[in-house]
């Protein structure tokens, strides 16, 4: 238990990996044993992560639960893990969806069960590693490590065009990664070049980014775009989204869920973590770059949403809706206001919940009917009333109805975008209206009306396992929708820190009384890696209002 409390993050990170290693020793024939072990470690992976949420100090704006160890001393690469308010919820989302995805595959995967569970568990460790790493080298290793299991999950257990889809997924992601690798090396060597006397080489993320803050703009631009491409492909942003359509359509349900729910968020996480600090300092230049990203996001929002309206295949529709909805998230990130950032982060979690659940639901339909065409469904609410209710709740969450999580996320996000630029918000709002149109219309066509196909009349309603998968997501949707305070309590300070670092004008233009009293941005390397929370501030009282009197 001592090990657990001091190495919480390592435990979270490697529990799935241990499961994968164990599975390697299980004989190939015993499929049920594979399932058992896979499920056990899937559940275990979630359970060990719960203390993280419980013990994470609310209001902290620094990395917590830090673990460091030398890894490759000659390069300065460490095994360094840490969690802050930004990665906290993404990690929880990963462990939760990872568990549910594994649970959901019990019946749907019949072939090569051993390899399937091994890959699922490996994938989970990979994704967790991306969110947990504090070392750029380690980050890149995990970033790449997620590609391989996903590639095989699509290529082996996918549908008809799986080979093309997996290849496309792999090539696109790899192209992004290669450029990012160049960016990482450039960052590393430029840091090394400016290294003071007797300083040591390092891949430490906060240190490198702090150093990058002082790089000349000409260099920062290159670094920004190098990282940007990798993340833009991963998110995906328009026009890099084409791999997503095939990947979603062909992937097995469990992989789709993790792809849509977690893997895409690796891109937005990257934007938050790396791209924002790499924005150039020159306001005009910065505005130009932000403009490009924002325009791409808005195109993505509207383009994806409009295409969704007439889409005939459910999974393809969900893929385009991902493009549209993640456009909000990237728009929010680059709006650079506290609301926009926290809204964007919350919306990433919300999308994990709603899109994840939608892929589960579609998968359940696919298991019953073996088709993804909307026209094959119709009137399903009659044979499957409980399915219809849960699907409805998830749809409402996805279109941002009050009392559900989507409403909080969308309105926070929009408020932040509105604050940054009113016309951006106007475009984004249009996307929200369209999302209501296509999601509800999809729902009507699939669920309501009379049953149009003979085959649909005898469909069975949800099974207990399916309830187990869906209920937590529905409960989370309501929880965040009704009482989002715990979330904001934990993210608002880290986000404030990001804004102070990347958009200091936001706080400075408001007068001297709020000038950041926090520690200066550039902290000596030794301090950032060791101290757990140098500026832990008590929950702030609500400031008195100035305008009223």
């Amino acid at each position, binding site marked *: 238990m001592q090990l657990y409390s001091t190495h919480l993050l390592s435990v979270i990170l490697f529990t799935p990996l241990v499961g994968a290693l164990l599975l390697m020793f299980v004989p190939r024939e015993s499929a049920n044993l594979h399932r058992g072990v896979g499920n056990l470690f899937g559940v275990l992976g979630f359970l060990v992560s719960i203390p993280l949420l419980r013990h994470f100090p609310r209001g902290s704006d620094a990395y917590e639960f830090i673990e460091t160890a030398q890894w490759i001393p000659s390069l300065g690469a460490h095994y360094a893990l840490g969690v802050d308010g930004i990665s906290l919820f993404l990690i929880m989302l990963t462990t939760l969806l990872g568990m549910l995805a594994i649970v959901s595959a019990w019946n749907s995967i019949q072939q090569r069960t051993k390899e399937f569970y091994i890959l699922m568990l490996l994938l989970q460790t990979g994704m967790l590693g991306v969110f947990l790493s504090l070392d750029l080298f380690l980050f890149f290793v995990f970033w790449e490590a997620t590609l391989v299991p996903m590639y095989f999950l699509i290529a082996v257990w996918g549908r008809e065009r799986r080979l093309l889809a997996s290849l496309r997924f792999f*090539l696109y992601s790899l192209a992004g990664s290669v450029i990012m690798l160049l960016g990482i090396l450039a960052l590393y060597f430029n840091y090394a070049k400016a290294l003071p006397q007797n300083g040591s080489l390092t891949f430490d993320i906060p240190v490198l980014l702090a150093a990058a803050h002082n790089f000349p703009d000409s260099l920062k631009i290159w670094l920004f775009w190098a990282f940007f491409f990798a993340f833009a492909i991963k998110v995906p942003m328009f*026009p890099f989204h*084409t791999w997503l359509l095939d990947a979603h359509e062909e992937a097995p349900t469990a992989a789709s869920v993790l792809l849509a729910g977690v893997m895409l968020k690796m891109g937005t996480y990257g934007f938050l973590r790396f791209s924002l600090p790499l924005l150039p300092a020159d306001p005009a230049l910065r505005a130009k770059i932000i403009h490009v990203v924002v325009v791409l996001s808005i195109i993505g929002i509207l383009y994806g949403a409009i295409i969704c309206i007439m889409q005939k295949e459910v999974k393809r529709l969900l893929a385009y809706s991902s493009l549209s909805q993640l456009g909000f998230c990237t728009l929010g990130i680059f709006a650079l206001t*506290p609301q926009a950032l926290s809204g964007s982060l919350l919306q990433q979690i919300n999308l994990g919940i709603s899109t994840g659940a939608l892929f589960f639901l579609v998968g359940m339909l696919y298991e019953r009917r073996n088709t993804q065409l909307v026209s094959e469904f119709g009137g399903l609410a009659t044979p499957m009333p409980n399915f219809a209710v849960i699907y409805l709740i998830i749809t409402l969450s996805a279109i941002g109805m009050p009392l559900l999580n989507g409403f909080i996320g969308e309105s926070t996000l929009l*408020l932040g975008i*509105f604050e940054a630029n009113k016309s951006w918000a106007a475009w984004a*709002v249009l996307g929200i209206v369209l999302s209501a149109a296509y999601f509800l219309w999809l729902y009507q066509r699939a669920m*309501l009306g009379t049953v149009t196909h003979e085959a649909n009349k005898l469909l069975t309603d949800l099974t207990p396992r399916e309830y187990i998968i869906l209920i937590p997501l529905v409960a989370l949707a309501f929880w965040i929708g009704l009482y989002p*305070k715990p979330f904001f309590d934990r993210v608002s300070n880290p986000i404030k820190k990001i804004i102070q670092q990347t958009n200091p004008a936001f706080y400075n233009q*408001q007068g001297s009384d709020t000038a950041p009293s926090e520690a200066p941005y550039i902290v000596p390397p030794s301090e950032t890696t060791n101290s757990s929370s140098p500026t832990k501030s008590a929950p702030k009282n609500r400031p008195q209002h100035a305008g009223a009197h």
Partner: protein
Amino acid sequence: VTPSAYFLSHAWLVPLVPLVTALLVFFLGRALPKSVISVLCVASMFLSFAFSLGAILQLLAFPSGARVYQQILFDWLVLPGLPVGNLVTPLVAECGYLLDPLSAVMILVITGIGLLIYIYSVGYMSHEPGYYRYFGLLNLFSFFMLTLVLANNLLLFFVGWEGASLCAYFLISFHFLKNPALQAGLRTFLVNRLTGAAVLLGIFLVAITTGTVRFTSEGLSEPHSSIGIFQVFTAQLNQGILSSGAPILTAIALLFLVGAIGKSAQFPLHAWLPDAAVAPVPFSAFIHSAAMVTSGVYLIARMNFVYQLSPFAMNTVALIGATTAIFAAFLALLQTDVKKVLAYSTLSQVGLMFLALGVGAFAAGIFQLMIHAFIKSLLFLAAGSVIHALSGESDLRKMGGLWNTMPSTSRPFLIATLALAGMPPLAGFFSKNEILSHVYARSAGLDGYLILWIVGVLTAGLTSLYIFRLLFLAFFGRSRVPVEIEGHIRETPKAFALPLMVLAFLSIAGGWLALPVLWGEESPFARFLAPVFPSVSPQRATTSFAANSLQTEYVLMAASAVIALFAVLLAYNIYIKHPKRHIRIAEALSRLTKWGATTNTADNLYDILFVNRLKDLSLFLYSFDLKIIQGLTNSATSRAVRLLSRVSTWWDEWIIDGLFNFVAKVVKSFSVPLRMFQTGSFSSYAVLILLGLVILLGYYGHHVQYIVRNAH
């Protein structure tokens, strides 16, 4: 604070009770018998109503200037860092409620009429499948409506706003196996979603201008005091940061107006309301009277100080109201379906409310809202029992002569008709008169408002005409009911009769709240509401309260009564005395009536203009995506890969292989002269080797020396 504030401090129960009931019904409804559901729902609504009544009575006990009770239950949303003025403050939206005269009237109307509609629904829906679903949704709808009017801040208000549209969507699509119901539901929802987005933007604008979303800080104690939209705006006005007619105020007002137009079904976004007639009748009655369409009016009334500061927005409100009022009244005249007549009538009457708001007569608008709620719910419920008795037939051309067969429906219907037509001394007379007299008073100060007054008077006449047409066609004259149905016509069950009687009483007596107007005093109802509508704009104070003289008032009253009477006579003449004439008129105007009766005209227009274009765009973009974007990116990648492979092939062929070949060729070419040396004799070989060695050593030795020298 007075000692007796029990109901005020427990007013959060008013929306909570329907919510809890809704959850109970949703979760247990399938297992419970209908009678239990009925009792549970009616009892819960009664509880809400009782608490509303208690709250308003306790509010009345406060001194008239201090009738505000606000309570914050907990912090719901605390959004980080909103910069306002010199400070970056978190934006706080509490879960809290505001009870002032305006919201008190609203909850009383919603729960009161809601209660009657619940009772009526027990009878009306008893044979429908999905009984529990209906009541669950109805309770949820009530919850959202009550949240909307009780919320103490804009974000919570917006929860109610969106939630109400959502429940309306479900209830309009209640018969979810039928396509028209689904379509109407989706249309309703999308129109409301679209306009709701404008409201959201308006809320954001308020939030970043004032740093708060709380309506007012009145009634709050220390830690929360001084932060309210109203207070901040007033302070900014006093400091000269804002001035009347500032663009930001107009923008806020217009954004909210867009929302109100959508929700209250005003021109040009009115089409969803007539479509929504596919909903179960009691629910139609609810959204047409107390709920849903009133929310737009409520929003404008609640944000009245913003509107007062934006003359342009005010004029727009008045203009939209007047347009809708007369346009819808005219269309109501052309309908052949009872529910459609009533739907257009609602549009027209809500238009009058907008007109009232637009001339700054906020209290008159709310008065009209309340009176109209009584009358319209009565009309709808009575029409519902007719439709029920005729086995679902709602076509006016297949009715007639029901006066004596359905006495307990036809009598209340007559009262509602008289009230809506504005016959003194029924309720409608007072509410309509309030509005018209304010519009007239306003016309003295501003050019162009006289036209609005004329429009209002004409609307009153048309109203009287179409509602009496409805009455005569449905209840008088020869019966045109199909024979197979006629035998089954039966008076409706008790559950129907009680709400009708109560509403009939209210339609008569409700207006007497404004009785002192007759002898030149201010209406007590308006006086009760006055603190909610403080005059914030100096310009407005000078113009709008220049009330009419008593004589003018009498003339105006007489004029509107006469016009209404004249319209009744006209209707009598056409529809009773000379029934053939009406058929002839209908034939003569057949094209017009056909156009008017197809309510889908506006829908079709939207379809042609927007919906179908959007679908085309969707298909176009999809093929664009497949062919161009995917083609480009995929072919770019594949081309890149191919190019890479070609480069590497080239590299392989020309550089790697080439190098070898080159070396080989060089060797070969060298071999040509060398072959000459291949004499086969050992001695000549030995000489050559020696020679070569000397040359090599000499050459490299020089180099080695050079390198070694440089190293030092």
